[in-house]
């Protein structure tokens, strides 16, 4: 079965794509290489040569640069460009590993640099939806394999032996029969004169031949990170740089009526203060007051003294408490829209031996990346140079071009490492603001959001509600499932980003009689993709309710889930990016086995299971939890089993899973933002208490390395953790958690 990148994107990246108006590439990954070659400077048609002058020049003089992804120098050093944004997901290590593997390069010879932003050469350059690996897998393998083939060809010509008799490994070409060998560096100049092979004809390694992929490789930026070297957007410094802050209306949509600009301009260190009207696009520039100062602190201090009178006549008046009341009121009504309907739910419920109802809810969340939003911009008359920590540099280019009315070729944009993404930096409002401020300042300017700005001006994970009704037959088998999903809309037509449920959501396609209804409540608050969009919340509700059903039917949770999965098949069919019930069953079985499912436990301590499929990853997790008489919860251990195909970097993949589980515990236990009168109620970590080390459990990670195309791991380990813990809490104490965060119900961790 082939991996369909397009349908995969359509299924997991709906929200991501809906934010990207212009440049979805309408080419397959295989033809991408040809296309980039055709668009390149033309040294060899079949393969990409960067139009970037520096790279192209290097190709013809003193280095071997068969494509825009790598260069081999005569001294043996191998420079690999990582094309995608690094936001903590480890892609800057994983991408070069894929190239190095096919190239048979020794990892110690490899140096990694961030690629320039140039989608014509590199294809998609973005980080979102855990799609970096599946979308680039073929492209990067062929880039590496092409280099290897040319190095082999150079050696074979030199030695006058058939290429087929040459082997490679550890940055060396060998010819066993004549006992000759040459290092890649020694072959670099000869290889540079050879034609680049047609990438589609290259023979790629089988998994059994991997030497680097699947091993544990430490992150390529780790040395710089632990020694405090500048890496992040917020670390950018320029000569004569000034520092900016930007104050927007706390209720989205508010405009500046008046502000004490004169008083602010008179403050120590303040160079200027002015109003920006913005363009009214929340993902670009909303109205506000910019302050430019000689230091970040002077700007922060002036911001604290800033008094703005806002015109809130068309601003948000959203209320979370109002939404909760409304959702509770309409939960039992029929949903306004029917998203999908299979079989006859009403009839099945009528004849069911047992019928269960439950109401689940979860709150709004900010992303709270630890590096606040920031961007450095230097406006130079008719052009601008920018340094942006973003997940979507291509989209940042479009936004800045739109805001400034510049052609994209007048914008030079550099990708920096980002101190966390989690979906926040899919939107580039902060970059657009920096560009708009820079246009009014005759110096490089660094815009830094305060933590409070960051928490109050996000694109939030939408809260939501599920009113479930389900039926079991006399044997405790699930025969009817109805979910009345209550979500939000900002346009009255479709749900907000991250607040949608597709007809294929688990377990709709697996229950003979199933229905998904939807009612949308109006909302102005901006919403966005948040680590494992939709799944991060839906998994808690769905997988908890499935456990309720298993319990009501007197069934073992593992068996009940396996019965729902049924025979191994793809759902929807013929798409390797879809749920595969065989892979699902395998991760559930292994998680149960590894966690000791069924083992005797002391009173007040129990295991709980959660499964979820998202972002093409199948994950099952088992939590071991204690609950004491004061409703204090201790999570002792979480066992994670995932199937994302072959693992690229074992260390990175494991780290992502451990982090996702800890993130999920943090979120389910403690985290929410309220909204009242359009205003986000929380503003800093005192009110948004991210989990600390003392409350973080042991997380054991196991992978089933199936032969399917590898898929991403930044997100899919997150969703099953909350239901696993909630189900364990029930098993340990009889307390059923139906609303997040738990702390709002008198439970503590």
């Amino acid at each position, binding site marked *: 079965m082939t991996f369909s990148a397009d349908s995969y994107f359509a299924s997991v990246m709906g929200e991501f794509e809906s934010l990207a108006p212009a440049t979805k590439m309408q080419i397959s990954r295989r033809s991408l290489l040809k296309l980039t070659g055709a668009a390149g400077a033309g040294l060899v048609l079949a393969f990409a040569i960067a139009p970037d002058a520096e790279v192209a020049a290097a190709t013809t003089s003193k280095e071997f640069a068969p494509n825009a992804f790598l260069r081999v120098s005569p001294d043996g050093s191998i420079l690999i460009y990582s094309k995608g944004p690094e*936001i*903590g*997901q*480890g892609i800057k290590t994983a991408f070069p590993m894929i190239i190095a593997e096919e190239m048979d390069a020794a990892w110690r010879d490899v140096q990694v640099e961030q690629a320039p932003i140039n989608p014509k050469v590199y294809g998609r350059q973005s980080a979102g939806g855990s799609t970096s690996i599946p979308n680039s897998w073929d492209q990067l393998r062929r880039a590496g394999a092409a280099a290897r083939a040319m190095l082999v060809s150079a050696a074979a010509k030199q030695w006058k032996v058939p290429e087929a008799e040459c082997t490679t490994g550890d940055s060396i070409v060998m010819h066993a029969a004549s006992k000759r060998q040459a290092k890649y560096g020694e072959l670099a100049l000869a290889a540079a004169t050879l034609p680049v092979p047609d990438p589609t004809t290259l023979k790629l390694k089988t998994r059994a031949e991997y030497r680097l992929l699947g091993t*544990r*490789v*430490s*992150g390529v*930026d*780790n*040395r710089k*990170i*632990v*020694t*405090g*070297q*500048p*890496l*992040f957007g*917020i*670390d950018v*410094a320029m000569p004569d740089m000034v520092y900016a802050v930007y104050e927007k209306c706390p209720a989205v949509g508010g405009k500046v009526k008046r502000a004490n600009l004169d008083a602010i301009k008179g403050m*120590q260190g303040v160079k200027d203060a002015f109003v920006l009207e913005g363009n009214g696009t929340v993902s670009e520039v909303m109205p506000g007051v910019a302050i430019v100062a000689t*230091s*970040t*602190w002077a700007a*922060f201090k002036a911001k604290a003294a800033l008094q703005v009178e806002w015109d809130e006549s068309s601003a948000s008046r959203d209320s979370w408490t109002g939404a909760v009341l409304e959702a509770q009121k309409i939960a039992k009504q029929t949903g306004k829209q029917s998203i999908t309907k299979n079989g006859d739910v009403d009839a099945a419920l009528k004849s069911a031996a047992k019928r269960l109802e439950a109401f689940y809810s979860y709150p709004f969340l900010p992303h*709270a*990346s*630890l*590096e*606040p939003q920031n961007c450095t911009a230097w406006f130079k008359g008719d052009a601008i140079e920018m340094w942006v920590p973003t997940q979507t540099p291509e989209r940042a280019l479009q936004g800045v071009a739109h805001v400034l009315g510049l052609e994209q070729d007048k914008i030079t944009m550099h990708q920096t*490492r*980002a*101190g*966390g*993404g*989690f979906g926040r930096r899919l939107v580039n409002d902060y970059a657009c603001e920096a560009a708009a401020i820079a246009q009014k300042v005759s110096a490089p300017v660094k815009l*830094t959001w305060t*933590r409070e700005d960051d928490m109050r001006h996000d694109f939030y994970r939408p809260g939501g509600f599920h009113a479930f009704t389900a039926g079991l037959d006399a044997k405790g088998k699930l025969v009817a499932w109805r979910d009345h999903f209550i979500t939000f809309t900002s346009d009255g037509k479709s749900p907000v980003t991250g607040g949608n449920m597709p007809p294929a959501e688990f377990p709709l396609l697996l229950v003979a009689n199933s229905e998904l209804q939807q009612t949308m409540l109006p909302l102005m608050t901006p919403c966005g993709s948040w680590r494992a969009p939709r799944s991060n919340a839906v998994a808690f509700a769905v997988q908890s309710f499935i456990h309720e059903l298993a319990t009501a039917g007197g069934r073992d949770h593992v068996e009940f889930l396996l019965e729902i999965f049924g025979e191994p098949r793809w759902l929807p069919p013929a798409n390797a990016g879809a749920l595969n019930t065989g892979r699902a069953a395998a991760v559930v079985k292994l998680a149960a086995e590894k966690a000791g499912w069924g083992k005797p436990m002391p009173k007040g301590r129990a295991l709980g299971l959660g499964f979820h499929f998202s972002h093409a990853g199948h994950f099952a997790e088992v939590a071991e939890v204690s609950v004491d008489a004061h409703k204090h919860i201790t999570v002792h251990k979480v066992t994670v089993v995932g199937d994302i195909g072959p693992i690229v970097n074992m*260390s*990175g993949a494991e*780290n*992502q899973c*451990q*982090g*996702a*589980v*800890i*993130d999920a515990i943090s979120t389910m236990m403690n985290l929410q933002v309220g909204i009242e009168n359009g205003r986000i109620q929380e503003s*800093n*970590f*005192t009110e948004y208490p*991210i*989990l*600390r*080390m*003392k409350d*973080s459990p*042991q997380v054991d990670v196991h992978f089933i390395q199936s032969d399917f195309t590898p898929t991403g791991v930044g997100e899919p380990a997150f969703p099953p953790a909350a239901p696993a813990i909630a189900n364990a809490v029930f098993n340990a104490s009889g307390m059923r958690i139906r609303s997040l965060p738990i702390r709002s119900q008198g439970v503590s961790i």
Partner: protein
Amino acid sequence: MFKVNGTEHSFEGLDPATPLLWVLRDSLGLVGTKYGCGIAQCGACTVHLNGQPIRACSTPMSAVEGQSITTIEGLAALDGRAEGALHPLQQAWIDHDVPQCGYCQAGQLMTAAALLKTTPHPTDADIDKAMSGNMCRCGTYTRIRKAIHAVADGGAS
């Protein structure tokens, strides 16, 4: 006058209420110390004041007059280590591939280094207690704990 990583600096004319964090980052170009919250909640700005871990975002310049500051950029050179050598904790962070986004790790390392000075062989509880002022949004706690133990068990400090 005050010392940063062994070098003396003077900040005459500067508002004495300015937090140390912004002097390090904006004036001295030592950007390893990070801004995360500005209210001593996240620990990303942790530096040593005379060997003690403090939050630079909430420490005014008036409080560091005549004192000695060590930042992440100066951690490796502590204890007279040769240039280019790493503090054992920094090496352990690399060996255990601790970082994800990496933004909090300078603060985590400064707190861990101070812990091992006072408690060379910490228990899990010691580590949890010392490190709980340092948030990691990516959730690398499991590996931080492991890396600290590895250094403590290795006898290095």
